[in-house]
């Protein structure tokens, strides 16, 4: 019951969707829309599960006075502020002029953008330590990164402005992005496709069952 039911659900849903791809006519095409809708509904509940778990963890942190417990109140405050206002504003909650949009603009957006922007400093510091031209492969990585970074800023244009058109850093960056980068990415993408196909088959045939056993 605990293991067989999940495996059966996975196989039925997965194989139905594969069959539907090859027979895109009624009634089979309705199955695709239906299962996709179910997927989105369950995924939404999974997001809710994550949010509720966050509240539970922070409630425990506050109740048992664990390290940094006062900040648990801040988490709860932020959560309920957005949820209450979001529910209050109704279906058009993200329209400009609503309170939810205002909170998004003054809280969520600046915090999110700043959090990701400080990664620029950490990436710079990590690359300073990690980017050493130890061998041919590392040198190629270093050169490609430098060319792309310099080729996308005015300083790169200034550095190579004396070169003839077509040989400037911006042109070289475009060439690297259009050809060698595309070739590498394409090999990776085809490899990923083959990997996903094989792992999907393993899941659908019940050979990969760790998700069903919880181990």
């Amino acid at each position, binding site marked *: 019951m605990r293991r067989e039911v*999940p495996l059966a*659900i*996975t196989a039925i*849903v*997965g194989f139905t969707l*594969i069959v539907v*791809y090859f027979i895109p006519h009624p009634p089979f095409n309705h199955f695709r829309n239906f299962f996709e809708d*179910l*997927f989105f*509904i*369950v*995924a*939404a*509940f999974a997001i*809710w*599960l994550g949010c*509720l778990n*966050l*509240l539970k963890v922070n409630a425990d942190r506050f109740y048992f006075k664990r390290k940094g417990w006062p*900040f648990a109140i*801040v988490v*709860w405050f*932020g*959560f309920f502020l*957005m949820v209450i206002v979001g*529910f209050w504003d109704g279906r058009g909650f993200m329209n400009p002029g609503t309170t939810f949009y*205002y*909170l998004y*603009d*003054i*809280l*969520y957006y*600046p*915090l999110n*953008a700043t959090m990701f922007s*400080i990664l*620029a400093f950490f990436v710079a510091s990590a690359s300073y330590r990690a980017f050493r031209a130890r061998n041919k*492969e*590392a040198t*190629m*990585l270093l050169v*490609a*990164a430098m060319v792309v970074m310099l080729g996308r800023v005015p300083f790169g244009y200034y550095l190579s402005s004396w070169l003839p058109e077509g040989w400037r850093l911006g042109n070289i960056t475009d060439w*690297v*992005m*259009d*050809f060698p980068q595309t*070739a*590498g990415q*394409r*090999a990776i993408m*085809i*490899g990923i*496709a083959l990997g*996903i*196909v094989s792992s*999907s*088959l393993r899941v*659908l045939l019940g050979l990969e069952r760790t998700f069903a056993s*919880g181990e």
Partner: protein
Amino acid sequence: MVETIGIWIAAILTLGIFSFLYKDNPFYKFCESLFVGVSAGYWFATTFWQVMMPKLVDNLAAGRWIYIIGGIFGILMLLRLFPKIGWISRWSLALVVGTTAGLYFTRYLVSNGMVQTENTIMPIFVTGNLPQTIGNLVIVVGTFCGLVYFFFSKEHKGTFGGFAKVGIWFIMVSFGASFGYTVMSRMSLLLGRLDYLFGTWLGLIK
């Protein structure tokens, strides 16, 4: 007035996150906790209005009762919060895994496998356009050698190993370019925040 208060709050929170660059401190902890709570609340409300309402509630209201299955599986997912009966949530997880496997099987096979291969097998020689011809040649050689590198069922030795070595060069260039692109995107975010602080907040940049 409301707008000014909003600008001040956003600017102070921005400074709070930036303060981590000096060292971990209570001001940063406050902003970080607020970010976590606000993000969770944002997604909670967004999923309700953009997924639950149109896909579940509206369908049920229109008499399409089959969608109750989605609601049941969703509630089973929430049972994960109760350790004694948490195992039932694996049924919902199975639905997600099955849908993902079924959809991705065909989607990735077509878009990442077939279409990418199709785009690689193209007329290499473009008459009167040498740079394009060289570029096409680079793509074909790079993709082939990159795939050889990912083939681990045969030892990378001899001619095969040579192809694999060329493949890793292309993959390294690709990683380097992706890294450079990521750094630049983070830089543009940083410039956006600095522009907000010095322009919108302090009014020093016109």
